[in-house]
């Protein structure tokens, strides 16, 4: 049985080290971790948006939530959760991304050549994902050092750089999450993928709308 496992297409030579480290389930488990961590991040994005949009009901409501999180030590907990889930997601999706320069060129050439929407969305998914790693790290670092309250947030978006930063982060994460969830359905079935795409587009636009209003309110509060 082991002998057969080590045989892969176009690769007839037996490689002892490869055989001894071979685990039949590795690729399956990575796939599952990638999906579950992605879904958790998607959920987090929603809850996060829900919490932040408490500003719609005034700085008071926002601060009540922030204090609540503070009192129960939820902030460090959330940050730990995020770091772990992020790490798992990044670790498992990295294997999909082109790692060498040559592979990058293949991806671009291929995407440009075959004119296929879902192939392009995968390329953008990789790019937005990479950008989100950096932006989200900055965002998390700021929040964990400065803490959360309406006054701070309102002041922050007064600076043009920060405002742009948040708008970009909002757009990128909504795009990435939407395409990611679509991909899960594309891979596992269960729903018609074209209607799923439409539903997800609608949801993302809705979330972007909520996020934009939230930023707008914070901006006016700070002014």
């Amino acid at each position, binding site marked *: 049985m082991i002998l057969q496992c080590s045989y892969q297409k*176009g690769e007839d030579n037996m490689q002892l080290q490869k055989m001894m480290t071979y685990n*039949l*389930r590795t*690729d*399956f488990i990575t796939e599952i971790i990638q999906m579950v961590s992605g879904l958790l991040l998607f959920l987090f994005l929603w809850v996060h948006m829900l919490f932040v949009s408490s500003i719609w009901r005034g700085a008071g409501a926002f601060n009540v939530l922030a204090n609540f999180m503070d009192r129960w030590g939820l902030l460090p907990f959330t940050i730990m959760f995020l770091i772990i889930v992020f790490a798992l997601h990044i670790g498992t999706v990295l294997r999909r991304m082109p790692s060498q320069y040559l592979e990058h060129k293949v991806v671009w050439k291929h995407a440009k050549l075959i*004119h*296929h929407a*879902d192939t392009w969305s995968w390329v953008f998914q990789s790019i937005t994902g990479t950008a989100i790693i950096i932006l989200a790290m900055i965002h998390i670092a700021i929040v964990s050092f400065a803490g959360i309250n309406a006054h701070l947030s309102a002041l922050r978006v007064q600076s043009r750089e920060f405002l742009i930063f948040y708008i970009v982060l909002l757009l990128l994460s909504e795009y990435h999450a939407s395409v990611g969830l679509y991909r899960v359905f594309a*891979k*596992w079935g269960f729903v018609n993928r074209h209607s799923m795409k439409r539903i997800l587009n609608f949801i993302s636009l809705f979330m972007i709308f909520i996020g934009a209003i939230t930023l707008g309110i914070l901006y006016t509060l700070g002014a």
Partner: protein
Amino acid sequence: MEESGMTLFVVLNKIREEQDPTLRFDFVCRASICGSCGILVNGRPTLACRTLTKDLPDLTTLLPLPVFKLLGDLSIDTGIWFREMSIHTESWVHNDEKFDLTAQEERMDNEIALMIYEAERCIECGCCIGGCMMTNLKPNFIGAAGINRVARFMMDPRDKRSNQKYFEVIGNKEGVFGCIGLLACDDNCPVAVPLRGQITYVRRKMASVGWKMK
């Protein structure tokens, strides 16, 4: 020189006759049956013999399908790839029962027979392979045609392979867990094999096997 109902097959022959006698391209059946004429038409993998010139823009680029061995111009050898894939996936009915020449053939459910037929409609043109990002990146990935092939045997009650055996062949990144779900295969298959359905079928089946495995 445009004639109604003219296909790329006719165009390529005209070019060979009138302009370049060395031009290489493949055709056999001219009717979407043999699968030898897969090419990229303006980047999209499809069969040249079913592409009508009246549907094409004024400027059209033709390229050979990637991934396969290039023989020259538009001519590729899909045979090598499909043979390797067949060997790798052990594309035959695995059954140790002694064959009784005189016995009546076992009956099969009509529904299962139809499902198997859907998979068997694949004409091995290679369009799903040439258009897939993953097969272009990872030469060991068996692509939609390969996954479809395994699905065919999984559905077949005469094939006595265990789920574990299937998992060893296709429950990995060279198989169904290497697919990233872009579905260019499903969008481009010229004979509309339900590739997305086949991939999800195999993926779910392998996931449940992997889940229960110790």
